[in-house]
């Protein structure tokens, strides 16, 4: 952990509101993206990502600095996403689990806000939105553990060590589960792009 990060965490432990704002600005996109990819719904992601930061504000005293702050934060995000998925699965009345608040709103992906500041033409945007939607539906087909691993490794581009800190899984397990998830996603894309 860098000195600047340690100071920032120290200020957050003193409940410095500016430090909290800085944390949200630094990690908001990452947390939101993780939660959104896990849940597949922007409305759900908005609620849960907010809860993640509220939890951080409440429980920052339990952060001992043994792990990186970002992995500690993403562990909270992953756990809250999994809990939400369980809740939505219990609440779901239709077999697809796509009704109500947990709706998978990937069809609305063209209106999403990409992080890149680059402005592309309509064709490129439509194609990107279609791919985004397709991949999101493919991710939703995976079980929650596989989903998390694919997101952490291939969407967030984290190292196996960092993924181990977030999930608590040994590297060998991560690799084998990730491989199965990637293969399932490849098969799904093959079926839906032919």
């Amino acid at each position, binding site marked *: 952990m860098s000195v600047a990060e340690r100071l920032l965490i120290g200020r957050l432990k003193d*409940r410095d*509101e500016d430090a*909290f*704002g800085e944390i*949200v*600005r630094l990690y*908001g*996109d990452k*947390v*939101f*993206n993780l939660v*959104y*990819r896990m849940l597949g719904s*922007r409305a759900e992601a*908005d609620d849960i*990502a*907010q809860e993640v*930061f*509220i939890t951080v*504000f409440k429980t920052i005293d339990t952060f001992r600095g043994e792990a990186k702050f970002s992995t500690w934060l993403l562990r909270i995000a992953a756990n809250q996403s999994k809990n939400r998925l369980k809740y939505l699965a219990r609440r779901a009345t239709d077999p697809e689990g796509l009704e109500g608040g947990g709706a998978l709103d990937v069809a609305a992906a063209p209106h*999403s*806000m*990409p*992080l*890149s500041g680059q402005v592309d033409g309509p064709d490129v945007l439509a194609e*990107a939105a279609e*791919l*985004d939607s397709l*991949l*999101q539906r493919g991710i939703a087909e995976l079980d929650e553990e596989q989903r998390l691993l*694919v997101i952490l490794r*291939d*969407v967030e*581009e984290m190292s196996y060590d960092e993924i181990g800190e977030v999930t608590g899984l040994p590297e060998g397990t991560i*690799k084998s589960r*990730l*491989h199965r998830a*990637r*293969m399932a*996603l*490849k098969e799904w*894309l*093959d079926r839906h792009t032919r």
Partner: protein
Amino acid sequence: MDHEQAAELFSDFVDGSIAPRDKAALEQHLSACIQCRTNLESFRRAVGSLGKLKHGAPPGFLPEIQQQIYKRSRGRFFSRRWKLFGRIPFEWVSLATIIAMLIYYIAMLHGTPGGVKPAP
């Protein structure tokens, strides 16, 4: 090496973490197997596409969180009023009060017409 064994190595191959011996065996198999080459290509495409799935937090994300904390803490945190008064150091408040009292005292002394009249 058969197709299944080849496919088992795709992740390590794409990640660049494959052992040299496995890499050589896989490349040898790929050179002779068009089916596995196609499969590897679509595997690589699937994994590569995931890196483009970036979605930023919506506008107003931070103020909404601050508002939630304000509500749940019953105004203890993220209250503007609290922030305004909470941030003025008490030393400055005390000093300002003393100065104000001094000014008032001096004004009272000089403000009395003719000053304090001696008793006849």
